[in-house]
């Protein structure tokens, strides 16, 4: 009797399995075919939304760059403004209205036509945003570039830079702005200004962000129906398997993608991405650890180094320790740091010491600024002259984070703090978790004296770097310098490009004389592909185009 039980149980399981097997239908198509036209790329995080107008995280934008296109785009592998959906563009005499000549014969993924009306539908959608769509986390880049909206619901928002859009004919569109800004047209290359199909925007109610307070509901467009003009079309987002699949746009107007399928697979752990590449589970990944660059190259993997388009800086808070308001103390800190040693020992190959708070590939960079070479003796003298020989500073550094400009914060902290100690500055180490503790502590309040932070440029414009840091009073730096702030405003509103570049050069000089902090380094981040993958060009803006990727036969 007892012996029969296991058999009965087995029989029951078999019957149940058969019953289950008959109860659902497979809905997949033919998955056969060569996998050599499918590339799986490992990324560090899931995208947040598929509507780049509502995104600010790198992974959402990476997907958007394959699915959507913008009026202008960065040159492949660089930051210069080149044609995108617009073939040419010219400003009027005042510099406030820009006329864009659009490509003809372009279709959205839903088969509708791309034209001037579509461009205006998109700009008007962003400009007329209401309610939760005006939240800084929802339309981050619009607010960063354009300031506010047609009707600002938050009184702290500045007036909008964007004024209106006019479709003059099917392929000519005028974008008008309320004032001259150095951001235009470069900022329009941001994926957040991607042009969507107006029909799809309406069909899937793309602007309908509902809900309230802590229960914001996003429209299905942002999660399931991104519709652009790019070389890849959105196919599926399998959250349970952490993969997002794109397929080739067979009706693309330009050179069609060489890959049939492009899959982004989230592998948050850096080592796990490396192991997945080595074991063939993926054919490329981003955010390669500096220590892995050489071993991967040696093993034949295709490691691409992006031109450095970032800055790591040591920030000095003048509202922290009162001695820091004395420029001699800040100069002493700059002379105390052996930045070259840091670059040589802790940053990836190709990194270099920063002389400005922006990389030298951006117009307005100035090689003729005050330089603060490594000189501990001079640092000690300056400290003594300022009566700050026995200075104690609270030095914050972040934990549990790596950024492209800062691959190993703890190592960087240890080197910099050793340099400071060597000139007699007592360092009080304050390690904090990157999010939210570190970011909160260093960008608000007055309890921080020193910390490091950085920035990766969004587009090739000086204001996007130095303007972001120094164009207004910020708790991060703790100073008010009206002359400097006015100088920024003047440069940003100068219509003539050559004159503007000169003004940014002057600004870089002024910043390095005032020395609100110390620019430390520019680090080139790396991206890697499998041994048999070619065709991708590394971009300083992380604007890698997978349409040109292919497998070597």
């Amino acid at each position: 009797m007892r012996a029969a039980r296991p058999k009965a149980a087995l029989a029951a399981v078999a019957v149940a399995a058969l019953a289950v097997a008959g109860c659902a239908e497979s809905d997949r198509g033919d998955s056969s075919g060569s996998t050599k036209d499918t590339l799986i790329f490992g990324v560090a995080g899931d995208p947040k939304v598929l509507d780049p107008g509502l995104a600010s995280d790198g992974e959402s934008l990476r997907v958007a760059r394959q699915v959507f296109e913008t009026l202008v785009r960065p040159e492949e592998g660089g930051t210069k403004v080149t044609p995108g959906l617009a073939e040419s563009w010219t400003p009027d005499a005042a510099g406030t209205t820009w006329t864009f000549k659009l490509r003809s014969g372009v279709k959205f993924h839903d088969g509708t036509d791309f034209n001037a009306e579509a461009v205006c539908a998109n700009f008007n959608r962003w400009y007329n945003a209401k309610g939760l769509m005006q939240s800084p986390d929802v339309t981050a880049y619009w607010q960063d570039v354009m300031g506010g909206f047609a009707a600002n619901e938050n009184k702290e928002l500045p007036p909008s830079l964007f004024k209106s859009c006019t479709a003059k004919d099917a392929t000519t569109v005028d974008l008008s702005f309320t004032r001259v800004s150095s951001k235009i047209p470069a900022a329009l290359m941001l994926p957040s200004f991607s042009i969507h199909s107006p029909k799809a925007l309406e069909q899937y109610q793309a602007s309908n962000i509902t809900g309230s307070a802590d229960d914001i509901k996003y429209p299905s467009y942002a999660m399931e129906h991104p519709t652009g003009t790019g070389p890849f079309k959105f196919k599926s987002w399998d959250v349970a398997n952490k993969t997002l699949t794109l397929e080739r746009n067979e009706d693309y107007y330009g050179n069609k993608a060489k890959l049939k399928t492009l899959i982004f697979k989230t592998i948050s752990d850096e080592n796990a991405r490396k192991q997945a590449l080595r074991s063939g589970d993926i054919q490329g990944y981003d955010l390669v650890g500096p220590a892995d660059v050489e071993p991967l190259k040696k093993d034949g993997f295709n490691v691409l180094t992006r031109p450095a388009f970032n800055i790591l800086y040591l920030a000095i808070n003048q509202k922290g320790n009162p001695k820091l308001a004395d420029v001699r103390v800040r100069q002493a800190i700059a002379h105390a740091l052996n930045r070259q040693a840091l670059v040589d020992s802790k940053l990836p190959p190709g990194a270099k010491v920063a002389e400005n708070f922006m990389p030298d590939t951006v117009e307005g960079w100035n090689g003729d600024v005050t330089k603060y070479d490594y000189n501990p003796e001079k640092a000690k003298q300056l400290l003594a002259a300022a009566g700050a020989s026995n200075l104690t500073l609270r030095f914050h550094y972040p934990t549990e984070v790596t950024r492209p400009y800062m691959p190993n914060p703890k190592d960087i902290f240890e080197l910099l703090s050793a340099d400071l100690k060597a000139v007699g500055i007592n360092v009080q180490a304050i390690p904090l978790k990157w999010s939210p503790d570190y970011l909160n502590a260093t960008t608000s309040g007055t309890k921080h004296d020193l910390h490091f932070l950085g920035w990766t440029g969004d587009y090739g414009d000086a204001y996007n770097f130095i303007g972001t840091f120094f164009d207004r009073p910020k708790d991060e730096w703790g100073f008010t310098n009206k002359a400097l702030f006015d100088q920024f405003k003047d440069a940003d509103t100068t219509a003539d490009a050559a004159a503007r570049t000169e003004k940014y050069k002057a600004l870089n000089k002024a910043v390095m004389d005032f020395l609100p902090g110390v620019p430390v380094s520019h680090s080139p981040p790396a991206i890697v592909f499998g041994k048999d993958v070619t065709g991708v060009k590394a971009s300083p803006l992380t604007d890698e185009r997978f349409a040109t990727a292919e497998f070597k036969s």
Partner: protein
Amino acid sequence: MFRFIVRRLLQVIPTLFGLSILLFIWLHRLPGGPETAILGERGTPEMRAAIRRNLGLDEPILVQYGRFMKRLIQFDLGTSTSTKREVTTEFLQRFPGTVELTVMAMLIAIGLGIPLGYLAARRRGTIVDHASVAGSLIGICIPVFFLAYVLKAVFAENLGWLPSAGRQDPTIGATRITNFFVLDGLMTREWDAAADALIHLILPGLALASIPLAVIVRITRASVLEVLGEDFVRTAEAKGLTESVVRRRHVLRNAMLPVATSIGLLTGQLLSGAVLTETVFAFSGIGAFLADAISQRDYPVLQGFILIIALVYVLVNLVVDVSYTLIDPRVRVR
């Protein structure tokens, strides 16, 4: 039995209610909020304040709790501030992965642990016993993430036998119904998809099984040793029962009660997510997602997930209690 189960389920309600209050207070007392993680380096104090306003985080905590409870009663757990999807959707996408991984790990742990522990006890003092005890000690001591990297280096990188990351090969294009990938493959008769999902479970399952396996070996061994010394075993042997009957009916069955308790506890623990294993194997489960939610201060996800996990824990323990009666009919539930 039925009344017992119903009563136990009803007891869950005040437990969850109390937990929700504690959670709410604890989470909202953590320094910082979701706005910092959302904005990153870009954030200014004004932008952060605007987001707090939008998320309703500037309102009194009682108002926020009231809103949370109102939604909870309607089985609405809110929307994640980091992924912008509903918390319930997130849970249903990720929990099946955790369940599959738990089942795999526990099958390995139980399938190897009980025979090994039993064998070690029966052959006490021999090489088998020493090897089992030493092996289980190593199992407890070895860090899971280290074991995971070693397993991957050997079986994925060098030998290429098993995949190193994820739950399924995305090129298969499997149909999703329940998000239990193995089950979905069986239901849709996509046998390759089911087999592939199963293969993806082996390495993370092995890594995750190391600690439960070690615990089960040790508890089984100790428990069997204790029972072997009991009078009734000697009596059973003396009255001439065959060794296998004594072993099965008298020794194993009586030794299983503490083992069942520990299996229940271990399973409950694994079901609340295995952060390291999930991270290292890029396995979509609730553990790594919850860890991220803490650093992002994603209150809706933290509140929702922890409440559901607590409920699951209670249910698993209920199943264990019921299983006592099957193992030992002398145990009666009241």
